[in-house]
Every structure is written in C-alpha cells, then in structure tokens.
C-alpha cells in the first residue's frame, strides 16, 4: 500500500505539490492524470526518493520513506520498477544488456542465468527478436517495451509508468496499455501510471485521480471520472478549449 499525506513541494519559485494526498491499495492500478507540468513526474520522483518533500508524509507498506537514510532508500527501490517517459535505456548497451543490468548489478547469479531471465522478460513484452539490437535501432514503442522489461526484471512489487504512451501511435499505445493490464493480471503488481492520455487511463485504471494545482481534485473509477461534474476535470478529459483550464 502506498500513501501520500499532505505532501508539499516547491521547485524554484513554483509550488508543484500543494497538499497532495492519495492512497493506492496493493494490487491496484492507479492512474494520475493532469496537464503537462502539473507535477505528475515530480510525484513519482518523491515516491522513489529522488526528491524529498518540503512537508508531508509518504508511506510505502506502512513505512515512512521521507525519513529513510540513503541505504534504506536503496533497499526500498528494490521493490520498485519504473518505466520512464523516454524509456531511459542506456544507449551503449544492447537491449538484453539493458534488461539484464539490474540483475548484473545486484545479484551473484551466473551470467547465463541472468541472460535467461532477461530473455524471459523480453518474451513477456514480445521483444525477444530485438535482444541484440542497440536502443538507437528501436522504434519508440519498442524502446518503451524494452524499458518495461527492464522495470520488471527484478520482479518488483510496485511498477511506476511515466507517460508510457507519450509519442506513440494509437496502435502502439493500445499495445502498451494491454501490456500494462496483462502485467497487473499476471503478476498482481501494484501500478501507478501518470499520463495525460485519457484512452490509456480508461484502459488500464482501477481508479483515476486528476492532479491540478498540486493536489488531486477528483478521484474515482474510470466510469465515475467519465461522468464527473467537476468543470476542470470535464474540460481535461474532453480536451475542450472552453473552460476553467483555459487553452
């Protein structure tokens, strides 16, 4: 279980998180939507300890992570897998080396076993044929799938998806969405996704929360969000130019 309670963060002169509060249950897929630059990625960075909040509490499985020492934070991160918006593959390693990297760095498994596990994850995202390719030879969707394989290779309990469908065509987006859903079904993962792609949010979410002015202004199931009367959320999900969000 993951819990943010009244989290505040100011970066430079800008208040990015202003009393952010939410809770994600074990095995749930929670999607945070919001406009670009509204603090979605900053929320993730707080969750994995890349940023510390100015105030508030962040708890993972009941443990207060804001007071963690660096070593404890390293331990905590073993429970997380994260798919970055740009996939963040290391460009001098092949796809299979990228996927194998966390195992190579953190386990004493023999190289053959590491490769076997990396290939199993590449099978899972249907990317086995590209195992020997360099990231520069991959399309955007393939990079995302490789990033997902890397995020899953250590069998994490919690997976974070940072705009996984950004910049992808609709077919590839649908494929990524199905993959996210499959992973949750097959592996029982707790997932948090940040996105501004509503198709993607409806397709994968158990619950959706909209981040606006540093806090969640609406939380509900996809159906509840679709039928919301909140004008800000309505404008965002319909993509209308008219409304309180302006253009």
């Amino acid at each position, binding site marked *: 279980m993951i819990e943010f309670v009244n989290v505040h963060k100011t970066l430079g002169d800008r208040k990015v998180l202003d009393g952010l509060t939410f809770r994600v249950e074990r095995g749930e897929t929670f999607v945070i939507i919001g406009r670009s630059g509204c603090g979605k990625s900053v929320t993730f960075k707080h969750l994995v300890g890349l940023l510390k909040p100015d105030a508030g509490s962040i708890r993972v499985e009941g443990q207060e992570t804001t007071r963690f020492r660096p070593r404890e934070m390293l331990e905590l991160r073993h429970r997380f897998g994260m798919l970055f918006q740009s996939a963040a593959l*290391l460009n001098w390693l092949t796809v299979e080396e990228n996927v194998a990297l*966390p195992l190579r760095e953190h386990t004493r498994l023999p190289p053959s076993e590491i490769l076997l596990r990396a290939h199993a994850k590449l099978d899972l995202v249907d990317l086995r044929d590209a195992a020997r390719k360099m990231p520069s030879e991959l399309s955007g969707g393939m990079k995302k799938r490789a990033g997902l394989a*890397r995020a899953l290779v*250590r069998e994490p309990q919690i997976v974070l998806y940072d705009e996984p469908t950004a910049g992808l065509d609709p077919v590839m987006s649908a494929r990524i969405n199905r993959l996210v859903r499959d992973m949750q079904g097959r592996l029982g993962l707790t997932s948090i996704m940040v996105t501004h792609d509503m198709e993607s949010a409806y397709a994968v979410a158990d619950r959706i929360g909209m981040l606006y002015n540093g806090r969640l202004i609406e939380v509900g199931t996809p159906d509840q969000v679709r039928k919301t009367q909140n004008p800000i959320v309505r404008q965002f999900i319909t993509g209308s130019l008219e409304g309180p969000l302006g253009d």
Partner: protein
Amino acid sequence: MIGFVERTGHRVLQVASHTGYAVLLAADGFYWVRSAWQKREVIFQQVLICGVLSLPVVLLVAIFSGMVLALQTGMEMAKFGVEGQIGKIVAASMCREMGPIMTAIIIAGRVGSAMAAELGTMKVSEEIDALEVMSISPVRFLVMPRLLALTLMCPVLTAYADLVGTLGGAVVGFYQLRIPYPEYFRNALDVLVPMDIISGLIKATVFGVVIATVGCSQGLQAENGAEGVGRATRNSVVIAFILVIIFNYFLTSITRHFF
C-alpha cells in the same frame, strides 16, 4: 545596490554549492574504487578512450611544442654562442611545466568535455534517474571508472609528452641549430634530476583528478535539455582550464619548497 549585493551573494552561494558537490563527488568516486575489479571492463574502456585514443593528439602537440621551444630559445642562445645548451632548456621545460600543462589542456578539451556531454545527455534523458531507481549508484557505475582512468592515464600521457617534446627539440636542434644528437641528449640528461620528472607526474595526477571531477560533476548537474548539456560541456572545459592553471602554480610552489 541591494540588487547587486543580492546577485553577488547568489553567485557566491552557487559557486560554493558547485564546489562542494564536486569535492563530494570526487570523494565518493574514490570511495567506490574498492569495487574497481567488478568494473574492470568499463575502466579498461575508459583507459582506452582517455589514454590510448589521446596519444595521437598528445604526440602532435608535444612534438611541435618541443620543436618551437627549441627553435625560439635556440635562435636567441645562438647570439651568445650557447645554443649547444638547448637540450637542457627543452628537457627541463617539458618535464617540469609544459608536459603536464599541455597534456592537461588537451585532456580537458578532449576527454573532460566528452565526459560532461555524455553524463549531461544521460542526465537530461533520465538515464541517471533510471540508474538510481534501479538502486545503481551513478557514481560507482559512471564516475568512478572515468575518475580512475583519467587519474591513471594523465601521468602516463604526460610522460609520453615529456619524451616526445624533448625528441622534437632534438630534431630542430640537429637540423636547424646544427647540434649533434649526443650533445643534445647529454645536456638534457645533465640538467634533469628525478624530481623534475616526478613533480611533473604528481601534477599530472592531480590534473587528472581535477579534469575528471569537473567533467563528471558538470555533466551530472546538467538540466534543461540540449542547451543545458551544451552549457555543462562548455563550463567543464573553462573550469578545468582555470583550475589546472591555478593548481599548477600551487603544486609548483609545493614541489619546489619540499624538493
């Protein structure tokens, strides 16, 4: 007036913060040298990039510097009929000052800037964040191999520059000043004491640490996309040049004082 004081104070704090970051980064980098054996492949790769691939540039710059040094001083000395002593001047200058400084400037431009650009690109494309989320220390994974490789290779390249520069001086001495090779090298060996070479290599080692630390710290602090990477690259060269010149003065003072 208040604005000026505010800006100056802000700048001072910024410099102090960057300096502190770089010093801690270097300390952390050396702490991780204990895992050098596990990272031997990457270190070897960096040794190749920093050291072996820099040899042609160092060769060219050192040989022509030695040649021009011999030519300029030799022609002046010829007016007094002491051009035969040119070997002493070239050898001493190369080993004490020119070799270490020249090599450091080449390395700062060629390797330090590449480190800043490479790590900066990784920073802005979230690869550094990805390493941290995977609980992989970027310092152990990226900084330590570069720091170690440059610390080891800078003195090696400097020794090579000393030798090549002295040889360049010998060629000019022979063809343009009519100084036989045996006389040139006898003079060169007469003036050199082991401490001349050792002090030059000590300087080179320190310069290696400085250049790697500046390159890596600038890269890891890059932000704002391509523009930020460009800024980090430019800063890494400028700061490394300035620090090399400043450190050179103090290291010369120290080595002269003690030896």
